[in-house]
């Protein structure tokens, strides 16, 4: 039974597995964090201007339409191998859903709410932190969820340029025609994606229920 073989392998090579697993998580967390730092402020800056929003969404979208493997390959000549080029590719993957959903979240805020806020003497900063950000939050979390799933799957490809992570087991499994080894990588990746989906879906509902 290849699944039990895979689990046995994980138990026998616990530390090797954990190194790869942690590396995978680290890549996902850093790239998601960087993507959020780029997308959310950009989203807030461009959301009110239809032209700027159009340009930034389409730029991000066309970058994303390049296959992840091609981006990984393209970063290699400039950034070499290892963690850095992998992160760049993953950020490119994670930015578009986050940016798009941030912009949508802000656009969906009722103009009357902003008019009332301004009319009562709230400043730009107060409106941003007390009104716009909380109201756009459910939509932003939807973006985080989509990006997280993209990044978890995408990080498997980092193995090709020496980024490490769970993709190493998948590659080794294919190279050696060792199916249990392949599953050692593939199963946790699938599980991580499902956990991310459930977790962020729950967060999103929690924020949405509050109105």
């Amino acid at each position, binding site marked *: 039974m290849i699944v039990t073989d895979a689990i046995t392998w994980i138990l026998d090579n616990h530390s090797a597995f954990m190194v790869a697993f942690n590396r995978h998580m680290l890549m996902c967390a850093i790239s998601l964090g960087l993507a959020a730092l780029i997308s959310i402020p950009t989203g807030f800056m461009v959301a009110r201007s239809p032209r700027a929003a159009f340009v930034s969404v389409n730029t991000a979208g066309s970058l994303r339409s390049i296959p992840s493997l091609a981006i990984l390959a393209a970063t290699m000549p400039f950034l070499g191998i290892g963690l850095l080029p992998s992160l760049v590719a993953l950020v490119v993957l994670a930015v578009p859903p986050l940016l798009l959903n941030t912009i949508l979240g802000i656009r969906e805020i*009722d103009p009357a*709410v902003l*008019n009332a806020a301004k009319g*009562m*003497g709230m400043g730009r900063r107060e409106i941003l932190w007390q*009104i716009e950000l*909380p*109201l756009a939050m459910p939509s932003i979390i939807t973006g985080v969820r989509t990006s997280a799933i993209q990044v978890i799957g995408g990080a498997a490809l980092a193995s090709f340029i020496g980024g490490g992570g769970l993709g190493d087991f998948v590659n080794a499994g294919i190279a050696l025609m060792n199916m249990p080894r392949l599953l050692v990588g593939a199963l946790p990746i699938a599980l991580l994606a499902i956990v991310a989906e459930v977790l962020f879906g729950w967060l999103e509902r929690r924020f949405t229920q*509050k*109105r």
Partner: protein
Amino acid sequence: MIKLEHISKVYPGSDQHAVENLDLEIESGSTVTMIGPSGCGKTTTMRMINRLETPTSGRVLVDDHDIAHVDPKALRRTIGYVIQQVGLFPHMTIEKNIATVPRLLGWERAKTERRVDELLDLVGLDPDVMRKRLPHELSGGQRQRVGFARALAADPDIMLMDEPFGAIDPITRVRLQDEFRQILHKVSKTVVIVTHDLDEAIKMGDRIAIMRDGHLLQYDTPEAILANPANDFVDSFLGQDRAIKRLALINVSQMMEPPRNIGATRSVSLEANLHVALSLILAERLDGLDIVGADGGRVGYLPRERILSAQHEATEA
């Protein structure tokens, strides 16, 4: 007192004046309703008072201070602002919504909480039930009550209300108009109400400002405007039934005669106006009505003929 001096407003990219050379004085403690066809500049004019719009030329003075020299945020925190769509913050409780301006002003928590309860009471909502609710759990009428309470929170001297009853069903609207008018009178605010509903303008306003194409056509008490429209436009705007509308401004107590010994078939309260009285008389083909006081006792009698001649007596008086 609010004073608009030679106010003009031209929006960028437009070659037409939204407001042109408008002068308007609003006495402290009085209510002015602004009315006119859409695009006449009434909302723009109102929004210049809290600097949501900046006049292209002219000055706005509040208590003799030119508000162009006041920080807009600080100014707006001293002016209540109510809009048709209410604009409650959907993610904040009713309590937190009402406390918006006190929070901006940095009030102490205990003082803010007391004020919120006081205001909920004032607008006829039970604080214990409402405090922790979210806006989506309220009806349209309740939401506008909260919007009104929120505008009153820091006890502003001036209230600006942009079609405050426009999105409310007709039955609730009448009740809210009555209640808000009473409250505004009690707390003696200077109030500007923008409306497109003539009956509302007549009912709520101590004075009515009628606008068209950025110009102020007539600015006077409802009685004076209904009696003497300044021009043909105002006349047609008021409608051919303006004589009947005037009846709504005359209280039955002004026209009633001493009570008769024998009761009539129908009666109205002392607070009713002649419009209501005439409607009853027409509906039931009566010769007159009894006027009853709060305790239900007859205090007067109003014969039909008195209503028919009321217009002329009121004008002469």
